[in-house]
């Protein structure tokens, strides 16, 4: 163990610590399923993060080439399993685009209600697990308590609590049962004060702000360059939401609905006087803002659901008949992106004229959102990694498919 050093001064400046290579995941409590992060660390400081994916790959796209579109709906459930309704919707819309089918008025509003409920459920999980990532357990269960109520509503509509296969090509599998709308409204009414509790427990909590503000700051250019979308993009202040900026066949669903895109403009969020103020520590594009955008989107979705309920009650036509299983698809191709809770979920379908598509493809938002971790986590502490990855809110089922 003897080292020969000619100049003693070299010794003083040449004391190096070893770098460590650590696997975070795929069986790690904070990697949201089976994400594996390879960390190169020097003590607590992380110098490099490489996400490794593929632990949940189920060949969903290949299966899609062997099933008719309505049969593939259950497979879309299992992509973003926290927002299965929105996945169903994306695939149903792209087939409808291919078939140039327009759902009836009532079915359109029904889909808005269901999709926005799905968004609330998904954001509640994102909020709760983010608290878990930062070491507080209780908000997680508060979030799941409210999510359970949404699942109860979904169960009443379609019988399932996680993988619904409810929204389908041509419409939905069944109309709302009687009395459902009242229950939905009652749920929204009681959710309003609960949101304030979440703000008290997390958004405005001093430790929470310490852990998230100015952590993982992403400039708007960076977010666009990496193809981020959804709350991750809007958390950087980019005013982009497919519900307003998307293709006509998708935005037609939200025709006549009043809503503002939740993104910071000139230092203000829309209607921000109702919500806790942005702390001075937070910088645009950091983990805190991404979390905040989700919280505001929950309130926005509640507003959209109320509008949807009003319009649904006034509509007189049907909710749309599901497409026949033997229905042949027109020759051609279609691609459509929808605003899922985690960002832009794109589905692509190529048809050669058969009932079964020649190619089915999904473009996942979490995939793009995840890839920025390597950039964001450079030079951060180990404790910041859950804070950053949690704020991106990725679902591995959607990335691996």
């Amino acid at each position, binding site marked *: 163990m003897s080292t020969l050093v000619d100049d003693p001064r070299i010794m003083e400046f040449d004391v190096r610590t070893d770098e460590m290579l650590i696997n975070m995941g795929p069986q790690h409590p904070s990697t949201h399923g089976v994400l594996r992060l390879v960390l190169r660390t020097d003590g607590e400081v992380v110098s490099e993060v490489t996400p490794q994916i593929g632990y949940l790959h189920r060949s969903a796209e290949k299966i899609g080439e062997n099933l008719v579109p309505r049969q593939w709906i259950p497979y879309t459930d299992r992509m973003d399993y926290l927002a299965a309704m929105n996945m169903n919707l994306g695939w149903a819309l792209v087939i409808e685009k291919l078939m140039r089918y327009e759902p009836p008025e009532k079915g359109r509003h029904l889909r808005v209600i269901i999709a926005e409920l799905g968004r609330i459920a998904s954001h509640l999980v994102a909020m709760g697990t983010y608290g878990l990532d930062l070491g507080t*357990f209780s908000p997680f269960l508060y979030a799941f308590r409210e999510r359970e109520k949404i699942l109860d509503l979904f169960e009443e509509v379609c019988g399932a609590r996680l993988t619904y296969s409810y929204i389908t090509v041509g419409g939905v599998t069944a109309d709302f049962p009687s009395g459902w709308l009242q229950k939905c409204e009652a749920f929204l009414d009681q959710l309003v004060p609960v949101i304030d509790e979440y703000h008290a427990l997390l958004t405005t909590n001093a430790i929470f702000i310490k852990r998230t503000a100015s952590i993982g700051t992403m400039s708007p250019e960076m977010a666009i360059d990496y193809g981020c979308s959804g709350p991750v993009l809007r958390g950087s202040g980019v005013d982009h939401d497919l519900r307003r900026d998307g293709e006509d066949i998708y935005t037609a669903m939200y025709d006549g609905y009043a809503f503002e895109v939740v993104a910071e403009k000139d230092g203000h969020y829309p209607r921000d006087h109702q919500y806790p103020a942005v702390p001075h520590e937070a910088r645009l594009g950091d983990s805190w803002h991404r979390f905040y955008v989700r919280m505001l989107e929950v309130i926005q979705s509640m507003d959209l659901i109320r509008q949807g309920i009003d319009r649904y009650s006034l509509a007189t036509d049907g909710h749309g008949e599901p497409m026949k299983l033997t229905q042949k698809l027109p020759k051609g191709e279609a691609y459509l992106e929808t605003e899922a809770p985690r960002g832009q979920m794109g589905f692509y379908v190529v048809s050669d004229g058969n009932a079964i598509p020649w190619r089915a493809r999904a473009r996942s938002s979490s995939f793009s959102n995840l890839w920025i971790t390597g950039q964001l986590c450079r030079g951060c502490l180990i404790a910041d990694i859950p804070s950053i990855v949690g704020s991106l809110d990725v679902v591995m089922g959607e990335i691996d498919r």
Partner: protein
Amino acid sequence: MALYLSNFMWSWLAYTIAALVHVVLILSLVAGGALLFIWLERKISGRIQDRLGPTRVGGKFGWLQTLADGLKLLTKEDLMPEGADRMLFRLAPYISFAASLAAYIAIPFAGGAYLLGAAPWVAQHVNVGVFFVLAVLGLEVFGTILAGYSSASKWSLFGAMREAAQVVSYEVPLGMCVVVPVLIAGSMDLSLIGDRQAGLFTNWLIFHDPFTFIAFWVYLTCATASVNRAPFDLAEAESELVAGFHTEYSGLRWSFFFMAEYGSMLSVSLLAVILFLGAWHGPLPIATWLGLTAEHGAIAMNLGKLLGLINLLLKAVVGVSVMIWVRWTLPRLRIDQVITTCLKYCTPIAAGMLLGATLWQYQFPSRSFFGLTEVPQAVYHLREGPQQAVQNSGSSPESREGTDVPEDEIATVNHPARRGGQVSASDTIPQESIARLR
């Protein structure tokens, strides 16, 4: 106890029997405390989170859930990672647990009648008890570091390094906060500090002056950090380090870490109660009103002590419950923020409080913030220890005369001045009761 027994048998036998009895009592306190606190933690966290917590094992309230889990842990396989340092890996949990247990040796559980020649309820009376408890509690980190080092797991190593950095830094403000009551009581003897707070709750050291009041809250923060509870539970941060230093442990060895954690939680809150919150004295001197004092014989005195013990443990359980409550409410700090909190806030505040308390003592010796109470004079007999106090009381009662205390300042019921105006040791310590005790 050993002294008493040695009247009847060889002294080595007396000491052995006394030691065994004390060990059994302390072990059952720590183990029973751990059982209670784990159950309490589950129940409180359940209620905080809109759940019921355990409901099945042991009746409606799930009392025996912890015991059932303990049995499960006993039957678990004792796993050891392949590259582990086998001896240290086995040794680490015992070091942690032994350190946590050893702190109880010097913690008195009831006192009050010390001045009568009978010892307080303490396993081994140490006249620098504060120092001993802090020193031994600090040893617990040793087991943690060994566990992290010997596990051959990078996550364990991270946890151990974090714990080492954190505990070592928090010892500094913790020590300073503890010095504040020591300074006021003028002794490092825990039973003396406890007896110093007899009477109304205004006599408690937390209400002694503004500085002790703030020092208590700093102590609470530092104690939470030094026993690794949220929001300072970095060493076992499950979202970052899987399970920190005990990632690789299973079964009984793991449960020893768990027991050590709950044991230290109880001992730091016991220390908080003894130093700041009136020790075994309730907010009102009920035991004195009921006549459960030494003047009414040994049975009454021991009943009073029992009441004191219940008082002490109740307050300590409240302290632990506060830690549990905080844990299930707050997110976790980051390691640099934890160290910043310690070095930039806790240490300067603690130092300031120490300075302030010193100035207070200098300016208003033996005056508390409320100005209602005076220190029970008899406590000062203890400066010389129990034996001398008894001897002095027999030989020269005049030499023990206390100062005159104005009648309107007396709130302490058992204040000797109430009975005579003049205080003398022979008045406080009746000879016959000493004789009976011996």
